């Protein structure tokens, strides 16, 4: 079973599952998996064509439906992965734009999306609220002219506790000087 597990761990389906899990659980946006997404897209297209061919050739509907189900599962993973990332971009778009390291984690299309969202939001804030505020409070990034940093920009909480699952028994280990756990 161990060999099987390590074997399937390298399939694209398994890698996509892992990327999806990580993206869902992490508060900040992670590096976009360009090659993985590309390969998954190609495989999906291949299976879509196969299914069409099967239906044309009258292959038994059971087989066709099984291929279709497998296809739907991968599609779900891919879509959910992309959507989770888009949600994070929408939430933290100003923050991401400011930090080059984060900006570089986005794909080309995501960067376009972020740019357009930022323009739209800026314009919306400007028209509906900011233009009507007194002069010192007109920025969408800062509370007021006296703010030292951009304090109107929401940032993901990176210092929260995380829950992780170890794959093997690791034995006892130290976390700084004190180790406390219940199990």
């Amino acid at each position, binding site marked *: 079973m161990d060999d099987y597990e390590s074997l*399937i761990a390298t*399939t*694209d*389906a398994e890698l996509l*599952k892992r990327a999806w*899990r990580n993206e*869902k*659980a992490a*508060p900040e946006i992670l590096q976009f998996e360009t090659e993985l997404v590309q390969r998954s897209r190609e*495989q*999906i297209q291949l*299976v879509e064509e196969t299914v069409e061919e099967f239906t044309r050739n009258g292959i038994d509907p*059971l*087989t066709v*439906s*099984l*291929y279709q*189900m*497998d*296809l739907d*599962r*991968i599609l*779900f993973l891919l879509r959910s992965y992309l959507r989770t990332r888009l949600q994070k971009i929408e939430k933290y778009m100003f923050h991401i734009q400011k930090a080059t390291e984060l900006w570089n984690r986005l794909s080309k299309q995501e960067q376009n999306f972020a740019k357009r969202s930022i323009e739209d939001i800026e314009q919306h804030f400007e028209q509906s609220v900011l233009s009507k505020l007194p002069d010192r409070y007109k920025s969408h990034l800062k*509370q007021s002219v006296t*703010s030292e940093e951009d*304090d*109107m*920009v*929401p*940032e993901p*909480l990176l*210092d*929260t*506790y*995380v*829950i992780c*699952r170890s794959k093997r028994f690791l034995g006892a280990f130290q*976390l*700084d000087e*004190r*180790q*406390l*756990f*219940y*199990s």
Partner: protein
Amino acid sequence: MAGNSDPHGSAFSAAEMEFLAEDELVEIVPNMRMDPINLICGDFGPFRPQIATQVPLWLAVALKKRGKCTIRPPEWMSVDKLTQLLEAERDTERVFQPLPFHYVEISRLLFDHARDDIPDIYMVKSLIEDIKDVRFHKIGTGLETISGRTNAVKLSNLSAMEVNIVRPFLAGALQTFYKLHNPEMVPESERRGSRRPQGADRGARRTLKPR
């Protein structure tokens, strides 16, 4: 204070946990003939009548629904094994018995779709319910021991569904304890108390120092 805890809720929905569980392998006994299939998630088959083979759970359920196979319940899902597990679970106060990671989802799916393939299904169902309850109770009593000085919490052998339910509460509780216990160590932006910066309050609110 509720605003201080993790605002995400569960990172995964129950349906998503089930989705992950559906990739687990189970044994089926087909009653038909079918050539091997090469899916994105792997290659399975060939399928021959009365010859057992392993497939992912979602595939097994699909075949079962169409009356093309019977599903062999996994060996941990027997009355004997489960009774042993339940006893062990009850006897140990702070330790969780090893169970398949997705035992909740797997048993649920099999109950829903393969009733007739499970011997003594009522007994099995009630045993699994009891095991679930005992474990949840253990989680609860364990959580009561968390205090401001807890650095890390280790829960061995927790299953997927249990982790998912406990996740938002546990993360939030530890976070709140940390903040309350170490106000000096909390960075400036965190001290405002929630995801959205509340710059307007910065002057008025002060963190309480422990007396």
